[in-house]
């Protein structure tokens, strides 16, 4: 019953856009001590690789948290273009 976040995301339906809907200016991330994005994102879209923050827009379920919770405000949040992105079958 207890499945990892990756497996969970496999259960969600997406229409992936080739355009990124969330842009993260990671150049400012090195100055960010908290790195709160590693905790708040419910789909683990922010990862730390070789000391650098990486954001993967595919698999984002558009919850809105990163728009408000990044302390440096480097997350440029928009929704995917109409019709794209997550589509819940139950919701």
């Amino acid at each position, binding site marked *: *019953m*207890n*499945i*990892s*976040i990756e497996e*969970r*995301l496999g*259960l*969600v339906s997406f*229409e992936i856009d080739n355009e990124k809907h969330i842009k993260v200016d990671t150049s400012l991330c090195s100055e960010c001590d*908290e790195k*709160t994005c*590693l*905790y*708040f*994102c*419910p*789909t*683990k879209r922010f990862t730390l690789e070789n000391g650098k923050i990486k954001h993967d827009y595919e698999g984002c*379920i*558009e*919850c*809105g*948290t990163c*728009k*408000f*919770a990044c302390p440096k405000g480097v997350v440029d*949040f*928009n*929704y*995917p*273009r*109409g*019709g794209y*992105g*997550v*589509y*819940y*079958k*139950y*919701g």
Partner: protein
Amino acid sequence: MSEKFDVIIVGAGPAGSAAAYSLAKMGFNVLIIERGKYPGAKNVMGGRMYAYALNRLIPEFWKEAPVERKVTREKLTFQGEKASFTLDFMDEELREPPNSFTVQRAKFDQWFANKAVEAGATLVPGIRVDDLIWENKKVVGIVAGTDKIEANVVIAADGAVSLIAEKAGLKKFDVKQFALGMKEIIELPEKTIEERFNLASGEGAAQLFVGQCTKEIPGGGFIYTNKSSLSVGIVIYIDRLIKKKIESHNIILEFNTNPEVARLIEGGKILEYSAHVIPETSRSGLFIDGLLVAGDAGGLVVNSGLTLRGMDMAIASGVAAAEAVKKAAEKNDFSKEILSYYEELLKRDFVLRDKETFKKAPEFLQNEKLYTLYPDFVCRLFHRLTLVNGPKKRVFDEILEESEGKRIQMFLDMLRGMRAL
């Protein structure tokens, strides 16, 4: 599209569809634009809608709407470290008239938007509204990609993040004003659900969890029974989560393994995972010249700890927005002076009144002790009262002993709770 509409509504969630339905019934030429492939495609909720607001708009809606179960059983579980304590409330009077229903948004939102279409509104799904059109500092329409569409008034019913309210220049929300909700749908046979939750056929339960499940982060867990699935999830305050440095998705993962929860979901299959932010405080302004903000976009959610109400507030605010537009149309004046009638209606009705009544609730509910000290206290006290391993003390003495050193704190929190809730 070069047509002009009387009203453009951004978002076909409950707020948008309620406004569209009301306006179409009044005879207005209404356009609703929804960015999802279909209404509900993007929308998440725990699972229970209080019936009152929609029943006023569409009497006995449950006879036709895709509702899951009528909630007749309310459970509240305090989770201590090793024990849990559940209050189980069954009320015949929650049956008729029905107090609340569990719903699944993908189905429900499509039904509701379709009601607006049947009433005469035009629905365009799969389009994202990007911006507003301005004329002399008044909103006079919307921009979607390369399309520009004009209207006398725009209703921003675009949910908690509300990029449109931001475009309108209304004050931005701050992270402290949000909770994060995560949930999963777990499939189980109808009969199993009814047995596990002790339910009559077609009836449902809502179970809230307070304590260990949120890892000392203010918030709670929930299970709502659908027809043949459970909605299982967690709501937590984001700024507190960040401080604790716990990965949000692990909290819901662990919730499933809590013995009390594990028994209820045993043998089930996870069908979907979802998450969304929930606004906890309302915006300071809900209208400007040519634009009204309804539902979550205006922060119109009331969380009293025991009840989380966003759907009914969204519906009631959508209806109030429609009434305000009607008044403005009668005067052919869509300025903020006339549209302020919206706020008057929200105060007269329950939306802003309830927000006012529970305005201290978010602050009170962020008190960490509610999620650590008290659930643990209740569980340990019952442990003392139920354990037989030698001479027993009087109940009152057990209470005094268990509360030793915490009594003043508890008394103060109780006073605060009484003021806030």
